[in-house]
């Protein structure tokens, strides 16, 4: 085909973004794959070592237990957010859809934090959770629950929960919006037909509304999964690169970053191990997300 008017335009519009994606997304991924197979001395690339880096992060101490620790935290975060973010999002969407009093205000209020930058949210919650001056402990003391007030981010038992709650607060508007859109697509006649048969909200939700919005849940679940295993910014800002305290908030994102680039307290850096971790994370996320997407797609219901 000759490069005439229209073809030229299309080429001109597609080429720059394609080049951009190739340079800044495809190349780093492919490069990381390659890096993972070499021995690194700082920025100096050493020998080709086959799968030694993978072996090290998975089976050699102290890396193996750190990997397992971070990975188990990611799994915890995924399930906690599944309940707190998606579950709550579904209930919020239902309340908004039923137009409970104040629905108009809350539709905006619920989505507003999503628009905020993670940096802002993270610092905001760090302030909220401050052991002495934070609004949470102040409030608890104010209502006479001083015993409950504690250094949320400073102890192992609560730190990860605190991060999860901050994350859920930040992003709950997204599943809410997706579920609400799904609910609004249910024909009003079907809603009326259910009302003719039951007045139980529980039956309406479990037997009619949930099955009919489940298709929109696919995308929400997959995005949450990807997000939970790539989680980085919020724990980085709120808990620091070491996953303080004592690695209780360490997740794969932080662990990878620390391993590849080093940090203030431990200057050691190893691109080979870091790349191996990145590759493993990528393969794990891609495999599960791809499988789940295909599986859930097959069950989707046409209205």
């Amino acid at each position, binding site marked *: 085909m000759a490069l005439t008017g229209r073809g030229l335009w299309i080429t001109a519009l597609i080429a720059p973004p394609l080049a951009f994606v190739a340079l800044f997304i495809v190349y780093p991924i492919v490069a990381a794959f390659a890096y993972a197979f070499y021995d690194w001395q700082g920025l100096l690339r050493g020998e080709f070592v086959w799968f030694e880096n993978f072996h090290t992060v998975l089976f050699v101490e102290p890396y193996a237990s750190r990997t397992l620790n971070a990975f188990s935290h990611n799994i915890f975060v995924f399930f906690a957010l599944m309940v707190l973010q998606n579950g709550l999002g579904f209930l919020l969407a239902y309340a908004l859809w039923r137009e409970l009093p104040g629905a108009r205000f809350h539709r905006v209020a619920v989505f507003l934090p999503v628009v905020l930058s993670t940096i802002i949210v993270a610092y905001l919650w760090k302030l909220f959770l401050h052991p002495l001056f934070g609004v949470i402990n102040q409030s608890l003391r104010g209502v006479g629950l001083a015993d409950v007030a504690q250094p949320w981010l400073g102890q192992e038992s609560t730190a990860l929960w605190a991060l999860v709650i901050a994350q859920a607060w930040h992003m709950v508007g997204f599943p809410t919006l997706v579920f609400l859109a799904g609910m609004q697509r249910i*024909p009003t006649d079907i809603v009326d037909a259910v*009302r*003719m048969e039951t007045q139980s909200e529980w039956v309406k939700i479990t*037997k009619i509304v949930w099955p009919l919005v489940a298709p929109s849940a696919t995308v929400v679940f997959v995005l949450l999964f990807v997000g939970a295993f790539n989680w980085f910014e919020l724990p980085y800002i709120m808990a620091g690169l070491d996953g303080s305290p004592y690695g209780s908030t360490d997740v794969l994102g932080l662990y990878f970053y620390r391993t590849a680039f080093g940090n203030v307290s431990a200057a050691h850096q190893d691109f080979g191990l870091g790349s191996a971790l990145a590759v493993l994370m990528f393969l794990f996320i891609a495999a599960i997300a791809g499988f789940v997407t295909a599986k859930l797609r097959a069950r989707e219901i046409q*209205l």
Partner: protein
Amino acid sequence: MAQLSLRGIKKSFKTVDVLHGIDLEIGDREFVVFVGPSGCGKSTLLRLIAGLDQISEGEFVLNGQRMNQVPPSRRGIAMVFQSYALYPHMDVYENMAFGARLMGLDKAEVEARIAQTARMLRLEPFLKRKPRELSGGQRQRVAIGRALVRKPDVFLLDEPLSNLDAALRSDVRLEIAKLHRDIGGTMIYVTHDQVEALTLADKIVVMNLGRIEQVGSPRELYEAPANTFVATFIGSPRMTLIDVARQGDRLAIAGGGSVLVTALPDVARLRIGVRPDAVVLEHGHAEDGFTASVVYTEYLGDNAFVYVRLADNTLMPARVGVNERFAPDAPVTVKLERAAMHFFSAEDGRRLDP
């Protein structure tokens, strides 16, 4: 058993008044049809009876019990929706079983009812199919079946035929009539199609602009419409209304001839209504009768309608035999049969009886 009383029912949505006070009694086993043009409030009234919308004012009593605050599922009423509103994620069996189970019936009873309903509606081959795998007529039967298995006191049907094609429509109409005979519940049926109303109803409720214009049997409505709205709404082609002046025993159109009529209501000006069957056309202009000219002829096989224009510009259909020929623009004389004439007040359109 079902005895419905609507007493002074009003409905407004925010500032818009949709129903302006509806009083209606519906008896057990009656087939009642609400009919009227779109926007007349007939569907709104049905939704109030179902409980899907709140009654703004007035009272709805079912079997002696005030229903205003009773939730829809507790009224003993089932509804068939215009779009059928089948649950897309359930197969036909589940669609029918859903409501029955929620009534607290045991498994065996649910199964028995569905088996019986499926047999009656010829749905047995489709029980395991999803709604999207069914044709329009089959979906319609599932929607009816879903209402039937609950064995409600009252069935509400909201324009159930409007999503079917013309051929299927008359079949389903027959089936609904037969169904009503077989199961004997009280049925309330909403339609804008007066043919459906005439063919199905024991009692027709003609509505317009949020008010009831007339309640009666199809025959009463056809033969003695209470006002010009009912007169023109019921019957096809429509009844023609002609404004005439009374001159002794004659009714005259200005400059368009007159007809001799006995036993007239005692007013100077009135509006007469004539159905196409009651019009006799004669070729040429004659002394006695309204003068008119032929506009066009509609040939329908077993008979034909000739549309003629009277001197006051009224377009009027007349039924003629298929062998009669009326050329366009030909002059004709319109003669009317006294027995088939309706008289209405020229001011407010109410029926006048001599």
